[in-house]
């Protein structure tokens, strides 16, 4: 099958400071449909920079990037917006939900920017369905400050999936969560991955990374190692072993 992501000698240099920072220096990478990749590496190794480029939030200084067969390194701003809207879902460490806006409306947000808008009723239906899928349908009317971190991250995942993206990008999605909640989130990721969504996830914790199928380690803007996970962890099984808590 055609790869979702093809990177060819990708470079990113920040010129803003006193001297240029070479955040990414020559990354070539292919990720196929249905993969679940964890990106690891020391702080400052260029993981977030790479994710931003993959997410079409930023453009590489040089090198090629094909997303789902489209050469995006040279696309204008508006077309990058449209790609983010239709092909990519983001999950952030700090959730990035709109405050004072209910969960269901947060989930509806990406649909508002579709070039082919849906009816309001259809939007609501899809948003509720998406919330249901991440196990938080009952909290649809709550605003982020009425939700726990894990619940907020579920809302964020529901939002990232709403336009049926081909690629889910998660930059330290469990960074602000306790271990049990982390496993719950990873369980959702694994389930989504089983359903066919390609996932790229940045993490510092080997424990978390071991839920992926493939681990890439970065250092100084380059890929150091790129291995398949030998003993993959299954979040659902782990949760079954953990003593039951109050639940989500």
């Amino acid at each position, binding site marked *: 099958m055609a790869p979702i992501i093809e990177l060819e000698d990708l470079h990113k240099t920040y010129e803003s400071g006193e001297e240029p920072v070479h955040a990414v220096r020559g990354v070539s990478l292919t990720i196929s449909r249905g993969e679940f990749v964890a990106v690891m590496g020391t702080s400052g190794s260029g993981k977030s920079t790479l994710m931003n480029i993959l997410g079409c*939030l930023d453009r590489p200084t040089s090198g090629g990037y094909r997303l789902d067969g489209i050469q995006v390194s040279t696309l204008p701003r508006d077309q990058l*917006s*449209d790609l*983010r*809207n239709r092909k990519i879902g983001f999950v952030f460490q700090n959730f*990035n939900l*709109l405050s004072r806006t209910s969960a269901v409306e947060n989930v509806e947000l990406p649909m*508002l920017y*579709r070039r082919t*808008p849906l009816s309001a009723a259809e939007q609501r239906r899809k948003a509720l369905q998406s919330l249901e899928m991440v196990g938080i349908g009952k909290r649809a009317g709550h605003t982020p400050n009425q939700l726990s971190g894990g619940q907020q991250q579920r809302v964020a995942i529901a939002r990232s999936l709403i336009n049926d993206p081909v690629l889910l990008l998660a930059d330290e999605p469990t960074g602000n969560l306790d271990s049990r909640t982390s496993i719950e989130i990873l369980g959702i990721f694994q389930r989504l991955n089983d359903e066919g969504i390609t996932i790229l996830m940045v993490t510092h914790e080997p424990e978390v990374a071991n839920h992926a199928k493939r681990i890439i380690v970065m250092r100084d803007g380059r890929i150091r190692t790129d291995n398949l996970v030998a003993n993959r962890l299954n979040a659902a099984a782990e949760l079954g072993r953990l003593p039951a808590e109050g639940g989500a």
Partner: protein
Amino acid sequence: MRLQTSFRTAFRALLRNKLRSLLTALGIIIGVAAVIAMVGIGNGAKKQVEDQVASMGDNALMVFSGSSSRGGMSGGFGSAGTLTLEDAFAIKREIPGVQGVTPEVEGSARISSGNQNWFTRLNGVDADYFSIRMWSFTHGGPFEERDVKAYAKVAVIGKTTALEMFGSEEEALGKIVRVRNVPFTIIGVLAPKGASFFGRDQDDTLVVPYTSAMKRVLGVKTIPRITVSVERGKSVAMVVEQVSNLLSQRHRLPGDREPDFSIRTQEELANMATATSKTMTTLLGFVASISLIVGGIGIMNIMLVSVTERTREIGIRLAIGARGSDILVQFLIEAVTLSLLGGMIGIGLAFLAATLIMRFSPMPVYITAGPVLYSFAFSAAVGILFGFYPARKAASLDPIEALRYE
């Protein structure tokens, strides 16, 4: 994004900071209210003048002593004393198409009755005066030609003066007022006419035969003004021409010298008054427009603050696929909503002000659709104009930096 959704989002954002939104819109509110009220007052004044022309007849003309180039309406006209009673008689006698002629003398006088005192305007006129000015009576009636001939000590009183001196119009009839110690018997009370073109209360007056006024009270020989009415269907311009020729001849003016009198038709006087009120209206409208612009600057200021406060929100929207233009439209609509709400409240306020002004003052206010639509459109334009810079600033934010913003 759908426009409907954009408006809903804008409303929400504004409702989140109710007080701030209201204070921001205040500039627009006051600006719009001021524009509409000011123009309304100007129009009211204009309409009043037009009504007066209609009530007084457009067939009247006035001859003033003194040339028109010396001084303006208030000081110059009627002050030089070049017109005589003979001029008035000659006009009546010799010019065809003239319906009525009255010499007019006036002066301010203290009048008294019992222990009541009042300063009023004393008018000395001929019996024709009342028909020329289309002035009717609520009580009693006018003096007649023979009263004038007989230097009769009879007077007709205006409504304001009657109320001040006697408390009511009925009471005034038959009473005696002393004008500089000359006793006049009141034989009529005039119907109210309101303020003149130039703002004087026409009902504050005591009208007596010119003969009595000149000889018994004022002691003058010349007259400042002659009022002439033209027969219906006859050309006013023609009569003006003939009066001018006649008086030049009578005053033995060589052709090249400036006349020592001036003639104004009722229409010209009305035009002068409307021109004045027009200038005022324009000026007031201009000042009020400036406050709209100041209101716009307030909107720009608050929108800039809002863009900074919501940098992260903008970052999120960009990350999930909003285009720069979506963000631009969102903030532009917010600014326009703010200014349009301000505009609508301002329009409401203007109508309220108009009602209050008309209730508590004699000033008529006449609000027309023009300034309402104009200031509504103007406030929308202000919103777009002053909202554009902040909105563009929001739209051009870098998504990554916006997401990182604390």
